[in-house]
């Protein structure tokens, strides 16, 4: 049975998302990380539009528009301004052993595909085969948060995780109710502002955005 064209597009988007997740995992430059994040948002918006078109779910158009606006434009712009102000535009992060992290990431992908297999069979959506990729994106973003030592990449990891969740929601059940989606979008925006303020605070307190310095806060 041939796969319909829209499904093929969605599958390609999913593959791109996974690729970007891996790219983010190994990217050491903050600026490129933000570019990747914007690209991820864009692909997410495209894939949501395709899903909306192919399944006639009109509310998904609004979701796609919201995603495009927020995740591909607003948040990256805020992040650009932030790193500009913090003057860490050209920062290169030191990370331990990127190949190892990639291998762990591979294992996570296998794990999430294995996990998603029974759920995909139950789901009746056109996007059911992408659920594993969505979960892998979530886990990879989580892994990215763990392996980064600077504050800004960690926040990007957090936002990418939210992207993964959104993708999982679209692929499993054609998206969450509109109210929930609006709420989450607002949460992410507000969270971004608050974290931005925190960056400045952390830097004034520790002269660096390296979170290793926060170990000093621990009581003995």
């Amino acid at each position, binding site marked *: 049975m041939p796969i319909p064209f829209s499904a093929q597009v969605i599958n390609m988007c999913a593959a791109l998302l996974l690729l970007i997740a891996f790219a983010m995992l190994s990217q050491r430059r903050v600026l490129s990380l933000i570019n990747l994040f914007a690209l991820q948002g864009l692909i997410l918006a495209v894939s949501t539009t395709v899903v909306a078109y192919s399944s006639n779910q009109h509310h998904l158009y609004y979701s796609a528009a919201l995603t495009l606006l927020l995740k591909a434009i607003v948040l990256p712009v805020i992040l650009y301004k932030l790193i500009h102000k913090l003057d860490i535009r050209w920062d290169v992060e030191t990370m331990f052993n990127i190949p190892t992290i990639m291998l762990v990431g591979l294992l996570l992908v296998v794990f999430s595909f294995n*996990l998603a297999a*029974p759920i995909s069979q139950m789901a009746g959506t056109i996007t059911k085969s992408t659920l594993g990729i969505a979960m892998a994106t979530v886990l990879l973003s989580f892994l990215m948060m763990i*392996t980064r030592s600077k504050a800004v990449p960690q926040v990007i990891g957090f936002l990418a995780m939210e992207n993964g969740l959104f993708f999982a929601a679209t692929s499993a059940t054609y998206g969450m109710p509109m109210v929930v989606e609006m709420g989450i979008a607002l949460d992410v925006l507000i969270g971004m502002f608050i974290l931005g303020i925190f960056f400045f605070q952390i830097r004034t307190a520790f002269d660096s955005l390296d*979170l290793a310095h*926060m170990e000093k806060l621990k009581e003995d």
Partner: protein
Amino acid sequence: MFASLDILPIDVILGVVVFWLVLGMSGLVLRNARQITQFIFPLGALGSLVLAIAALPGLSEVNIAILPLGLPDLPFHLRLDALSAFFLLLLGAASIGISLFSAGYFRHMKMVELGPLCLEYHLFLASMALVFLADDAYMFMVAWEAMALSSYFLVTTDHDQPEVRRAGFLYLLIAHVGAIAILMSFGVMHGGHGDYSFASMREANLSNFWASVAFFLALFGFGAKAGLLPVHVWLPEAHPAAPSPVSAMMSGIMLKTAIYGILRVSFDLLGTQLWWWGAFALALGLVTALFGVIFAAVQVDMKRLLAYSSIENIGIIMVGIGLTIIFHTSGKEALAALSLTAALYHAINHAFMKGLLFLGTGSILHATGERHLGKLGGLIHKMPKVALFMLIGSLALAGLPPLNGFVSEWLMLQAFLLSPGLPQPYINMLVPIAAAALALAAALAAFVMVKFYGVIFLGQPRDAGITAHDAGLWERIGMLCMVLGCIALGLFPTFVILHLDFVTNMLVQSSLGSSAVQSGWLLLTPIQAERASYGPLILMSIIVIGVLLTMLTVKRFYHGRLRRGPAWDCGFPEQSARMQDTAEGFGQPIRQIFEWFVGVVRKAPTPFDKHPHFHSEIHDRLWHLIYVPIKRANDMIGYQIGKLQHGRIHAYLLYSFVTLLALLAFVQ
């Protein structure tokens, strides 16, 4: 006696409990310290008297009451039966003297401390009464915890001293560990069906394994309150820290709530009993008794000494309970009744004797401000009345006839001597050894009392700076009540045993009364007249006649030729107080014999010391063997767990990541 008025004994007892609570509250309202000491405490004593009188008819009837208090649908069940009535009698009778003594003892206290103390004191009394009345686990635990907390605050009355705070904390800690064990024991006895009332626990049919678990949890939990080994460590710390009437109350009465709990659980709530429980309790009691008495012999602080002596007496009571279980499970009901009678008798005796001695130490402490035996001495001249009371108390605790301590220890030894013929051959062989150990403990207790009394009251004052005066009126009245109790319990054992019959009938379905009075009420006969009998009144009259005859003879033949001169000075030109035996010196032989047991740390001076100073300290080896390792293990586990939290965000993220993966793998 209340039948004509149609008032049940339990109603009167509840009335007394409410009365005590009101008295306690008034301590917060009244503004005048004099009012509290002159009226509230004597009124509390009146309540005790009413409680004791109301408990007497309670011995022979069962009353049930349900209080509409507590949680919704979970009312408090109360029950007055022979066992509770006996312990309520003990509580009421022994607290009369203590409350009267408190009226005098606390008279110099500042109002800001006296008000709360008055509340805690009466709350303590009321909660102990409710412990004895409780008929469901919920009520029992509420009363038990109220008792522990109020006594904790009483112990820490002088909380400005760090060692008092430390002692209070240790007491609270062990009390709570014990309370958890008791709670778990109730949980096991509950058996998974019915509610938590004692009635349904009696119904629950436990297997031998679970019954044993419940018994040993209860033994541990109540043992923590009673001061059984190895959870005895709070006693020698808390008793010296507390004000003397509080020590008297805790040692005399509160320790008995634990005895009550053990009896209630093992004889009433648990349907079955196994003989080896008895053997274990017997061994534990013996070890505790010997431990307590040996440590008492080497103490130099008078209240600490009495605290260790309390451990010894609780051990003796446990020996009686263990023996009762052994006899009861082997079907020897008459012997079970005998040993249970001995244990209960010793419990009420100890309440009076130890209460009296602690009150006496309170008077001494007030008069001299000194607890250390090494600084006291010769107080018989300055405090003659207290000296007389304390002499009677010491003789009673030493177990000398015709006072009360002798009766219970004699009954206990009789139970041992009559024991041959038990079905378990090993127990049969070990019983004589246990009897010998008990006799050793009793003899050492006499030694301890000689030391206690001799060092404090006889000889010359060891510290010239100490001034003393006799106790005030209230204090003397309080002590007199306790003395009268000691004498009455010693001289009229048959009457006491007739009342104890109700309890033994309830617990072991047999009684001593009929055989005890077979030779008339003058003679106490445990089993058979041919074997042994004891007539305290006859003995008393022989002693009195003997003393009178001697005095008359002396007066007749040496009249007028008596002269007072300096004591024989052994060739020394002059004697000083430093030449007499000290408390350490008196305990030296015991310390020498049991050195491996008590753990002595000595600091001897070198030959070149300009100011040589010898220092030796007694250590509780169990502290190092059990408590220090537990503390270390606790610290280590805490440290290891603390390592989890090292302030690195990545690690925290990793924890949630791993948890997420594990959960995902789990739901899959």
